[in-house]
């Protein structure tokens, strides 16, 4: 079953700016997907539509089997509260709010009683390795720790779909690696994880990469092992803020991929997939045939 199913989705903002045009994308349950593209290409719009924060101008979006266009604000909010987790580049942690309370807020709108919210929050913080930081406030935490708190908040309700918008954008490489490790761990546990990133090396370590350019979902690489150049030049010629892997941007031979331990860098810029953990629990391959067809387009 698909966590997100977008068909022929367009989003035109008032004033005639087309942020997304006729995009079709399916993310299966348990899949791990990177979304890449230059600034302004429409990847945030894609993420907002997938997260039901926005509605498409045309086309249909199904999230967790529900047609977003047909849901009321209340039903949509419940869908977000129970089935979707968000992680943002800016963390969005309230000033003066402790880590425990911030994470517990992840369950606030799902109607969970306070005591159970706090228990679940403590557990989620333990899962992200912050069991010792429960009562710390944002200014007492490092950037990496803050983002891990945000991840804990996103996963405290065990959502079916986790959407991360540049989760490592404000972090140094080692903190970023910790966060990516958390996200891939979630993917291994069965959550569909979609990550927007500017980090080509990071994207390369993902089993599936969706490229967005000028509002079009133009490239899908369905398999784990790939030839970067061919895949990335498959669609339109590279331009703008996103440049496909060129020799100087390839992973160093020593394998310093931020997705520590997950993908392995091989000399020549190839990332070899580690097959174990790439297959979601339901046995489906991470990318379905439809996605492959998308790639061929």
């Amino acid at each position, binding site marked *: 079953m698909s966590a997100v199913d977008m068909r022929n989705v367009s989003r035109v903002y008032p004033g005639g700016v087309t942020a997304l045009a006729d995009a079709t994308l399916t993310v299966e349950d348990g899949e791990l997907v990177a979304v890449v593209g230059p600034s302004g290409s429409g990847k945030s719009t894609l993420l907002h539509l997938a997260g039901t*924060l926005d509605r498409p101008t045309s086309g249909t979006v199904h999230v967790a089997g529900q047609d977003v266009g047909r849901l009321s604000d209340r039903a949509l*909010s419940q869908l*977000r509260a129970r089935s979707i987790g968000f992680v943002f580049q800016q963390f969005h942690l*309230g000033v003066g709010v402790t880590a425990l309370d911030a994470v517990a*807020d992840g369950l606030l*709108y*799902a*109607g969970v*009683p306070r005591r159970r919210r706090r228990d679940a929050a403590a557990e989620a913080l333990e899962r992200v390795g912050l069991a010792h930081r429960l009562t710390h406030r944002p200014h007492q935490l490092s950037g990496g720790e803050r983002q891990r708190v945000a991840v804990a908040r996103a996963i405290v309700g065990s959502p079916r779909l986790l959407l991360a918008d540049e989760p490592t954008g404000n972090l140094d490489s080692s903190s970023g690696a910790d966060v990516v490790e958390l996200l891939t761990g979630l993917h291994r546990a069965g959550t569909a994880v979609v990550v927007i990133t500017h980090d080509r090396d990071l994207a390369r370590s993902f089993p599936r990469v969706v490229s967005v350019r000028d509002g079009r979902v133009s490239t899908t690489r369905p398999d784990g092992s790939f030839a970067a150049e061919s895949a990335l030049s498959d669609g339109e010629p590279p331009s703008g803020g996103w440049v496909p892997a060129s020799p100087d941007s390839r992973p160093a031979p020593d394998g310093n991929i931020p997705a520590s331990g997950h993908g392995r860098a091989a000399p020549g810029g190839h990332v070899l997939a580690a097959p174990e953990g790439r297959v979601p629990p339901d046995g489906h391959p991470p990318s379905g045939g439809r996605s492959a067809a998308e790639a061929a387009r």
Partner: protein
Amino acid sequence: MRPADMFRVGAVGLRTRPLRVFLSALGIAIGIAAMVAVVGISASGRAALDRELAAIGTNILTAGEGKNFGGERVALPRDAPDMAGRISGVEAASAIGRVEANVYRTDRIPAGETNALSVLAARTDLLGTLGGSVATGVWLTDATARGQAVVLGARTARLLGVHTAGPDTRVFLGGQWFTVAGILAPQPLAPELDTAALVGWPVAEETLGFDGHGTTVYVRTDPERLSQVRALLARTVNPAGPNEVTVARPSDALAARKAADRTLTALLLGLGGVALLVGGVGVANTMIISVLERRAEIGLRRALGATKGQVRGQFFTESLLLSALGGAGGVLLGVAVTGVYAAGQGWPLAVPWWAQVGAVGATVVIGGTAGLYPAVRAARLPPTEALSA
């Protein structure tokens, strides 16, 4: 979402911005405090009056000389006080009579500088009838009432600069020297005594040309039978012309004077209301700024699954809490101001419960009104726009 959760979420926004919360709550508090203090001071004044009336009694009646159809003064008969004393239900009766004389500190004072003080002949049972007392010295006795002795009213003594009574203190009254035997305490039920110099009835008749006709008869009645006495008083003191007698109950006048203060109280309440309104505008302003600044938080909460209604509720709750805080502070402040003022006046502290409940109610209304628009605005903010801010 549970009310407790709503309360908690609304409080978070306040807890993390203490200074701004303090300042905008202060605006509300000043308005509430002004209104509570106005009501409290007025109530305390009334409570003090009630206490005073309870102490001096409300069972005093006066029968004064009136005017006939021609507008001429009609003096009371000479035996008016004695007649009044015989009415069933009268416990005591006494009288004063106007003496055509002036009182001066010394014989060197120009005759025109009378200070608007009057000279009255008083019966020796006057003070007992009124339940009054002397501040210093002694009241007239049957002996001193025949001699050159005078008792000064409280204000008279102050205006003449007389502070002690005794054989050495003399004033110049009606062309003669009178020894000040005593000085009266203020007489709330007979304020005319405060600006008078009181001499004995016999000496007034003998040396000051007093005709012996009382101008005002005072009677103290059995409180239960006050109305019966009141009905009989006029025709008893002047059977020949009951219509030419003015019967009054001085405690009524006192109460009426306090009632007149209510106009002023209403005016001050209005001013307090304006202050409260300004406070409400301050809260609305704070909330609008808060909504503008917290777009990211609104977006995040929407992403976490908050409905529009829940976002609206959060900011509405925050506004209510903010003004409730101001309201509570204002009530405390208002009671404190009332307490200080009442202590200064020697009044009992009385702030009516309805003023305090009303203050809280007004606060809720103000907070709700001020928070409505910002809350609706917060709820209308599209989540994507809020997150990109």
